């Protein structure tokens, strides 16, 4: 699969995910209407939930990148600092290599090395990097990291990931409403009256509630799945920009050798980063269970693939 196919697939997946988000809100709203909205002529809850879904996906699309950056306390670069000046240069070099507009650059005051890109398209994109990364990596390795992030921007991974970040947040919220609403309205007016027998209503209610409660969990798993697949491609096309896969391999080695978590980046944004900010040894374990819950493929596998790319050119 190349970057152009990936781009159109990402466009499709973005619509699917935004659709899922809106459907989920509708589902929660419809449930409220069904159980508690008996006296009302219009499905108030459905309409409210639908608009919440639409607004949150649109707001996420337009300014989700700012929210993500704000939540990690990312600051614009200080170009008088030699290290940050160098990083700015590296990013500019990579935008030239990719023939792309220059992304905005941010720094996060965190000692653990990590980086992520966000935004809705190449003209509205940002790259954030931790202070730790600038200290730990040499110029070539920084270049590799910038190229990796630039590839996420180029093939619109960032847009998809942004919508997913919004989805995770919004679903957690909606699920919370559903659970609270259920607690408060227990034994609601609907029970035993109207459509069907009491048993059927109970079953529908149970399904609704279980879906609402499991959704945040499922949305996390989906985010992890979607993000993991994209890391290999970003590694490969990043190496195509620098023509230096070994630099990315050694950058990943260095980043993953620091086992401390990146505290400034919360789990909701984990799928954006170059390496899992959880920072535990998860990245090294392999196997179906840890794979299911990892936002990133095992570092060792990524490094192996990059090295094989380098030797293929010898």
């Amino acid at each position, binding site marked *: 699969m190349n970057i152009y196919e990936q781009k159109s697939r990402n466009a499709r997946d973005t619509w699917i995910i935004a659709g899922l988000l809106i459907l989920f809100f509708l589902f929660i709203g419809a449930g409220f209407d069904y159980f508690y909205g008996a006296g009302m002529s219009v499905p108030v809850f459905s309409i409210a939930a639908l608009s919440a879904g639409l607004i949150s996906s649109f707001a996420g699309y337009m300014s989700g990148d700012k929210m993500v950056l704000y939540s990690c306390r990312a600051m614009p670069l200080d170009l008088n600092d*030699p290290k940050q*000046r160098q990083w700015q*240069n*590296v990013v500019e070099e990579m935008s*030239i290599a990719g*023939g792309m507009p220059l992304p905005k650059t941010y720094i996060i005051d965190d000692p653990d090395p990590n980086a992520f890109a966000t935004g809705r398209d190449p003209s509205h994109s940002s790259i954030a990097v931790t202070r730790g990364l600038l200290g730990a990596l040499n110029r070539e390795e920084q270049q590799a990291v910038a190229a990796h992030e630039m590839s996420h921007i180029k093939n619109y991974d960032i847009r998809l990931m942004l919508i997913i970040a919004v989805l995770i947040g919004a679903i957690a919220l909606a699920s919370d409403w559903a659970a609270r609403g259920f607690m408060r309205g227990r034994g609601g007016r609907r029970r035993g009256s109207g459509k069907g027998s009491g048993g059927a209503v109970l079953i529908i209610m149970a399904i609704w509630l279980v879906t609402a409660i499991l959704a945040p969990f499922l949305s996390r798993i989906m985010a992890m799945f979607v993000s993991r697949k994209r890391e290999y491609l970003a590694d490969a096309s990043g190496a195509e920009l620098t023509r230096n896969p070994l630099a990315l391999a050694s950058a990943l080695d260095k980043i993953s050798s620091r086992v401390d978590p990146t505290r400034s980046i919360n789990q909701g944004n984990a799928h954006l980063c170059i390496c899992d900010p959880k920072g535990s040894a998860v990245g090294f374990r392999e196997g179906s269970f840890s794979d299911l819950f990892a936002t990133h493929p095992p570092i060792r596998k990524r490094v192996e693939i990059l090295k094989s790319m380098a030797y293929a050119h010898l």
Partner: protein
Amino acid sequence: MSVLWIALGVIAVLILWLIAVYNGLVSLKNQVMNGWKQIDVQLKRRYDLIPNLVETVKGIMKFEQDTLTKVIEARNKAMSAQGVADKAVKENALTGTLRQLFALVESYPNLKSNENVAKLQEELVSTENRIGFARQFYNDIATKFNISREVFPSNLVAGIFGFKAAELFEIQDASERAAPKVDLSLK
């Protein structure tokens, strides 16, 4: 009657295809030209940086006036060079003298620790990289253009409208062409 419609349909499809291929080629050609301009932008950046660098190191590198003069001369020659081939040769000469200068800076501890020199050095390293990446991007996009110009059936369209092949940027300096040393110590 229906034969006529079918014939019209085929012609319409052909025309649409022609338009699509032609527009695709034009868009690629413009990207190629833009890629070429980007190289110029980066070369200009280098011309602007060099006098600053020379000015900064001049005081300390008293015994290296020769090298400094060479750098300035190479810069002026490269700036006034005409034509792609001539430009490439002069630019490579300039790259060579800059490398010499950086090698010399390494042997002056008080220069290496000088903040302004370090800053300028970073800017020049970055400029060298930008020139390299701008050329790489130009070659990538020019290759893409050349491929779509030559493959069947879009070569027919390219032929009708006379699209010329884009020239690739090649390494002029024999020493640069030599295979780079590969460091296998990286584990």
